[in-house]
């Protein structure tokens, strides 16, 4: 099972509406992606908490349909 970039972006946006998301393919297989997510909701949160917020938005897909998502997160201006 695979997942496309548009779906990943939509899911993250549903959980973090203000997010600026840049998605790139790590491998051209719809299974390995990298995402850079910038959101004001990350302000004052640890990196682990920031990633947990993105994982929460992706729900059960993470680790299943979506095998690998290299994640980078930051608050605006950081």
């Amino acid at each position, binding site marked *: 099972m695979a997942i496309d970039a548009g779906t990943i972006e939509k899911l993250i946006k549903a959980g973090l509406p203000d997010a600026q998301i840049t998605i790139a393919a790590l491998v051209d297989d719809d299974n390995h992606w990298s995402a850079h997510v910038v959101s004001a909701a990350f302000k004052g949160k640890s*990196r*682990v908490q920031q*990633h*947990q917020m993105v*994982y929460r938005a*992706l729900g059960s897909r*993470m*680790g299943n349909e979506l095998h*690998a998502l*290299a*994640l*980078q997160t930051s608050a605006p201006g950081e």
Partner: protein
Amino acid sequence: MSTATTNAADRIKQDITDNPVLLFMKGTPVFPQCGFSARVVQILTTLGVKFKGVDVLADPEIRQGIKDFSNWPTIPQLYVKGEFVGGCDIVSEMFENGELKQVFADKGVPTKG
């Protein structure tokens, strides 16, 4: 909570208490079975940190249990002195900017050089 979940959580708690640096990974430190696990092994080896690897592929109860325990959906997961540091992306980022070495220093874990 089912008995299996409780058992897994208890075993994880015991393991992260007993081992100052513990890596939940796919495969073993010598033969990692996944590129992301291999990357974290490589970072710890580069820093000269002594760690124990837990192969989640060999233990389905821990494989699911550690995801619930850390509220983290992916493997690898690095614990230092009982505290969850992060997965491959965070550990890599912290290694590159020097933060990881500082974490080990702050927690009294010896590194090389």
